């Protein structure tokens, strides 16, 4: 399949997903070609300023990996896709043939784009990597600026994070509901009445998700008194995650269709040939990195609450469940040690939640403000990875609590429990197992599910 783009409105998260993860090509539609042809002719004869040596230097981005690896090839595809938005608008003054070359890059191997060393004013440095395979011997200077300028990397990075985040949140809600069942927490804390009493759309969404997973859960075996704070506040904590995910999705939706070229060419209102060139700071995406920062913090906080739920499940005095959640007749430590493992993930997630601010270093008197999006993206990715680790542990311990007490969760949670047990069977004490490796499998499975959207 091929995604055909005609206007900026075609740069949606859905199309981003098709191009990035499903490997589809992108093609410029007829309308886009017409607009671009017109836009290229509107461009004033005098191109944007810049000495030749500086132009060459902009394309000569170092290709070394300094420390932390490379962007996923799918994300590089996303940057190429996002790059096309400014071009098809016609405002960038780029000829259709050049834009078609950019789109054609999606049909070949992706270049390696190092994660380190990409902070700078605008995004020309990573774009030089992304467009390394582009034929450019016939580009004029304005076209070079349009290809290297703007903020397509921020758009793609935040879109990639948004798609993963929505899935990750859905899976976290399911696992938290499984923990509620494992702990036998009273259901009042998720009551429908709270939707109106709290009056927040995101908390309502979280409450509804929990109720959906807990539909049909019985009251019979639940504790009569209130559960620990970590079980009662989970709708509000998940509500904040909903807010964080929505903010990232909005940043992605806006950024993908933005025209962010450093110079845009505006047709003259009087219809005279040649318009005016507007130079701006479009290359600085001011919304992606704060949204990613907030999401990292939300993951870290959710990881901490999940760890507290694990501790409550593992503590017989608190939960009223069997000591160490060992199965009847079995010996050993059951899931107890996983609580300690969760601690390390929580601390790592909290470290990753340190926000990426505008970098304090200025490159030169003109390039005096840089973009921190790559740092913010990397930190969000790490915080999410840590959350996956804690969620894997919460799922393991919840599954074990149900197993050790011979209970089933609410019916909507059966597929989730089945998924968890397919990767990590309950500890029944009948054989030696590599519980470290089994835990890692579940963490990786959750990471993969964040991309695919399916727990399988």
């Amino acid at each position: 399949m091929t995604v055909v783009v005609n206007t900026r409105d075609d740069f949606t998260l859905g199309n981003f997903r098709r191009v990035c993860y499903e490997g589809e090509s992108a093609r410029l539609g007829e309308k886009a070609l017409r607009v671009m042809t017109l836009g290229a002719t509107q461009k004033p004869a005098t191109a944007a300023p810049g000495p030749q040596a500086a132009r060459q230097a902009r394309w000569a981005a170092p290709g070394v990996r300094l420390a932390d690896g490379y962007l996923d090839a799918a994300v590089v595809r996303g940057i190429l896709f996002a790059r096309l938005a400014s071009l098809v608008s016609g405002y960038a003054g780029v000829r259709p043939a050049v834009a078609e070359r950019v789109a054609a890059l999606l049909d070949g191997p992706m270049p390696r784009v190092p994660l380190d060393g990409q902070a700078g004013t605008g995004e020309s440095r990573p774009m030089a990597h992304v467009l390394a395979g582009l034929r450019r011997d016939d580009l004029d200077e304005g076209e070079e600026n349009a290809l290297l300028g703007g903020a397509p990397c921020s758009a793609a990075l935040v879109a990639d994070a948004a798609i993963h985040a929505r899935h990750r949140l859905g899976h976290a809600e399911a696992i938290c509901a499984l923990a509620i069942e494992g702990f036998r927490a009273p259901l009042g804390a998720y009551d429908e009445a709270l939707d109106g009493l709290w009056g927040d759309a995101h908390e309502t969404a979280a409450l509804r998700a929990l109720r959906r997973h807990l539909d049909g859960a019985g009251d019979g075996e639940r504790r009569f008194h209130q559960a620990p704070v970590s079980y009662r506040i989970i709708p509000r904590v998940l509500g904040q995650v909903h807010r964080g995910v929505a903010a990232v999705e909005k940043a992605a939706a806006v950024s993908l269709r933005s025209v962010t070229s450093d110079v845009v060419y505006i047709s003259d209102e009087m219809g005279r040939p040649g318009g005016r060139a507007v130079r701006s700071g479009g290359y600085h995406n001011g919304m992606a990195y704060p949204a990613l920062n907030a999401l990292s913090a939300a993951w870290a906080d959710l990881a901490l609450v999940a760890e507290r739920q694990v501790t409550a499940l593992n503590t017989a005095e608190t939960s009223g469940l069997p000591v160490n959640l060992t199965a009847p007749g079995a010996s050993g430590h059951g899931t107890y040690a996983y609580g300690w493992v969760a601690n390390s993930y929580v601390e790592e997630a909290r470290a990753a939640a340190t926000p990426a601010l505008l970098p304090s270093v200025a490159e030169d008197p003109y390039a005096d403000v840089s973009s921190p999006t790559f740092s913010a993206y990397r930190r969000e990715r790490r915080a999410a990875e840590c959350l996956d680790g804690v969620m894997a542990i919460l799922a393991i311990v919840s599954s074990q609590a149900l197993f050790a007490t011979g209970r089933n969760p609410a019916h909507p949670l059966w597929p989730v429990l089945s998924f968890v047990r397919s990767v990590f069977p309950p500890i029944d004490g009948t054989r030696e197992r590599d519980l470290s490796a089994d835990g890692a499998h579940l963490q990786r499975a959750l990471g993969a599910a964040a991309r695919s959207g399916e727990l399988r």
Partner: protein
Amino acid sequence: MTVVVNSTDDFTLENYGRVATGGESVAIGPKAARTMADGRANFLRLLESDRTQFIYGVTSNFGPRAKITIPPDQQRAHARAPGFRGNWARGFGGGYLDERVVRGIIFARLANFVAGNSKARPVIAERLAALLDGPLPPVPFDGEVGAGEVLPMMHVLRSLRRDDLEEGDANPLANGSPVSAAFAADTALQAGHRLDHAEQILALSVEAFGAPLDSYDSVLDDLWGDEDEASALAVLRRYLHGASPEGRRTAAPASYLVLGRVLGQAHRAVADVQQAAKVSLRSVTDNPVYVFPDEDHALGRAFSTGGFHNAMTYPALNALAATWADLTLLTQRHVTAFRTAAISAPPAPGSADSARPSWSTADAATGLGALLVGLVDEARAAAMPTLLPAAVNDPQDDVSSPVFSAYRRQARAAECLDGALAILAAESSQVLFTCGRDPAPPLQHLLGALRAIFPPVEGKPRDLESRAERLVAALAQSAVTGSAPFGERGQQ
């Protein structure tokens, strides 16, 4: 004047400002009084139907002893337990909340009552409202982190009569999250004003530097396609309306070009805090909460919730602190641009360098610019986010609220931004003075008021530090009151 509250809809930011900053009283309206009386009567019927059912704090003990039930014949005495009759406030140190915030907390607390979900008698809400008419207790900043907001509420309620409390009266006073609501509201009211100050002063800087105006062109509103950035661009254009095109530079540092996008993020952060305040002020956050009878529950229900944990305020405050830190850095870059000869000096005679104007900003200096480095560093430290606290009180109270830390850090970041803006304003004024230029007409009032406090420096400078301090104080004060950044011209 008195704010009359009849339902949760009356807990608006506007009414909050009238009570907290304006010093108005609060009266419980007749509709609220009826609703609370109905709620109370319904709750008592529910309680009398089975005094062994679990209702946290009413038929059970508190906190980690929640599983310990209170026999029916001891429940009235339990309601008047020493923990509520005595002074349970324990936190100390770190200074105290401004009294306006304590007033705000009391106002926000009333939202818990007026819809009848509190279980309490109406007289309890009336007593609470009456606290606003007397002296208010000091509430320390330090030592207030725990599950929910019981710790600070015990300070706030220090002078409330509690010797006659009945079943269900106590928890709605201390449980829930009114402190988070008040912190969000207090911050939201100031943040809108502070952002406006920043936009005015940054626009003055654009004029002083002679930055090209196309970076704020209206065509960008649609091309960028973001409502917050469009708002920021519109504000910049409003302040720069009528700016002279003569002698402007054709190029400027990124810190001028990206203004619309950085300020757009500030608009977004301010809007988020305002939204958190609006939602939080009117939320019923009691634990346990009472819900009126319905088809399935003839006596209504009382059940435990996590309403006491406000999860939206502290992240919104974190984001705002980070925004102020970024703006502080941007402000420092502007002052640096004034001082940097490579870009601020006029072109050499005969040169065709169109990026430079015919005048120089490099020779105009108040000497205050060096202070910015420290302010930027402090603002960035304050922007480190407050997360859910790592410490655990007990197995039951296993997650605490970080809102006090978040509020304090936001306030510190805002203080640093005020300092940076004051310096940028003084430097911009000096540049305009030295170059003999006037800013765009909408900025001339700002410049006049600024110069009434901090006149252009001529000859041997005098009293620069104290004048700069007055600029900062004026900005901080006008952030609270909403007045012009440096007050009215001639009123200093």
